[in-house]
């Protein structure tokens, strides 16, 4: 029996029981000292765990997103801004609305390559034209056809870039950039990509879901580029996803702002490993989507919205302020 419970069990009848035996007193003091030491050690361990254990990825709560009037079509935000301290932008983007369809394209030029911005600009423009043509042609986009169609269009863009670099007598490899295409239609959302960055959509339950798994090496910032596409490597390098649902919102971003709006790195205690949960943040994206819905209801002009969005990407949070990578984030919300 523990000394405390012995005291407690008799204390009610006899008052506090004090041990008379000197050995008992010494043992009691020893136990107290040991308990204090254990408590101190536990507190130290807790402090260390706090340092070593990364933040959890708790199951997320749904953020209800306000309705956008149907006549507004797709409300959207789009911007690319240079990373902190960088002289020039190497990201490029396009967000085009065509009736029921929204096409989001993000390209991130490789920092170390001298013509990567030109590569990113070229790929964005080429793919925007290709996907618009596809939509306008009324071609059915289905689960069966998407992967092959998207791979063909991305390869075509890469080959067109190659031809241009050759005719300009430049090294094709210097035009390296990543690429993400998100296409949201009346009853589906689809994604194809080469390289890193993130893309996602809002599901019917109100949770944001990832649409792609980025190509990432063990070394930070290592990935694959559009200039690496060859017919033989196409299946391996172009990843695609097709979800047959009507979504209310889609998002696509370069890797610059991913750390801010996406759970990309967390500790898995079961495997004792750091993992990439690739989980868009309901809180972050929901909040932004709601502010977009609010601004749309007030008929804020698109240029103004994009300017405010640019300001946010530049320094809207502490991490965005100091991020040296370029930051592109596109978000479209269906009315």
């Amino acid at each position, binding site marked *: 029996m523990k000394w405390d419970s012995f005291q407690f069990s008799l204390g009610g009848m006899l008052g506090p029981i004090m041990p008379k035996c000197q050995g008992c007193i010494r043992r009691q003091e020893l136990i107290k000292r040991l308990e204090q030491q254990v408590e101190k050690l536990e507190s130290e361990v807790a402090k260390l765990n706090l340092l070593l254990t990364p933040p959890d990825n708790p199951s997320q709560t749904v953020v209800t997103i306000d309705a956008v009037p149907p006549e507004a079509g797709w409300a959207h935000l789009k911007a690319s801004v240079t990373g902190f301290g960088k002289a020039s932008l190497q990201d490029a983007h396009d967000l085009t609305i065509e009736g029921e369809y929204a096409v989001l394209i993000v390209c991130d030029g490789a920092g170390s390559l001298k013509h990567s911005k030109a590569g990113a600009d070229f790929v964005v423009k080429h793919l925007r034209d290709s996907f618009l043509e596809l939509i306008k042609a009324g071609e059915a986009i289905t689960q069966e056809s998407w992967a092959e169609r998207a791979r063909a269009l991305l390869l075509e863009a890469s080959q067109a870039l190659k031809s241009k670099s050759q005719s300009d007598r430049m090294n094709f490899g210097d035009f390296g950039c990543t690429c993400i295409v998100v296409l949201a239609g009346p009853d589906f959302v689809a994604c194809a990509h080469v390289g890193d960055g993130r893309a996602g959509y809002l599901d019917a339950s109100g949770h944001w879901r990832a649409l792609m798994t980025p190509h990432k090496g*063990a070394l930070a910032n290592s990935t694959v580029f559009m200039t690496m596409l060859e017919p033989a490597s196409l299946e391996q390098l172009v990843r695609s996803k097709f979800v047959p649902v009507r979504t209310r919102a889609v998002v696509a971003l370069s890797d610059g702002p991913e750390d801010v709006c996406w759970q990309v790195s967390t500790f898995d205690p079961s*495997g004792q490993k750091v993992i990439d949960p690739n989980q868009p943040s309901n809180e972050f994206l929901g909040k932004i989507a709601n502010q977009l819905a609010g601004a749309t209801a007030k008929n804020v002009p698109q240029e103004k919205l994009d300017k405010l969005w640019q300001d946010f990407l530049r320094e809207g949070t502490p991490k965005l302020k100091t991020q040296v990578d370029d930051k592109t984030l596109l978000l479209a919300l269906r009315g």
Partner: protein
Amino acid sequence: MYEKPFEAEEVQNYSQKCCVALVLDTSSSMAGESIDQLNFGIQSFLKEIRADTANLGQKLELGIITFDTAVTRVFEPQLAESLKFKPLSVNGTTMMVDGVREGIKMVSQRKQWYKQTGQTYFRPWVIMITDGDPDSDQQGELPKLAAEIRQGMDDEDFWFMAIGVTGAKMATLEQISHEKMEPRKLAGLKFSEFFRWLSSTIADVAKGQNVSDAMKKNSDDAWDGGFKI
């Protein structure tokens, strides 16, 4: 006019790691002001990292190796914000080659650990600071060490940077360094200025900037003695 800025709280993520192995000469010639300034410089370095607003203390893992008559791993790589630094003391000769090899081994082991635990990382750094020349029985190993460093730099396994303090044989540092990162001479005993530059440079690298841009961006006038062969 609508002027309401967008706002949202950012997600907390696990930080990518950047490992730096400091390989430090603690031979007898470093006695006195040199070792005092080096110790002070490292302490200031740790303070700056802990104060970094971009959370560098959670990204930078620092390991310290000393070389004199022996090579000692004084601190295994650990988050800089939790490293409890104890001042270094001097002793004996200059086992520089073994010291640098231990630094390369240290960052290589750390990289393996990052891979095993699924962590992404930036290319690690091995930074050697000396005021001398290797012991005579190590001189024969210099060409081999130079080849190992060349290979490691070419394979993008690590960055190697050699810093010479007054008295250092700069030709030796030139021999083992890669042209992508030439040896530098410390002006006087400006260790604090060097470590301030290092902390700013690593902070930029840990935010994703490439190393040559980060090195150019951070002014090194305060400590760089301007060595050139």
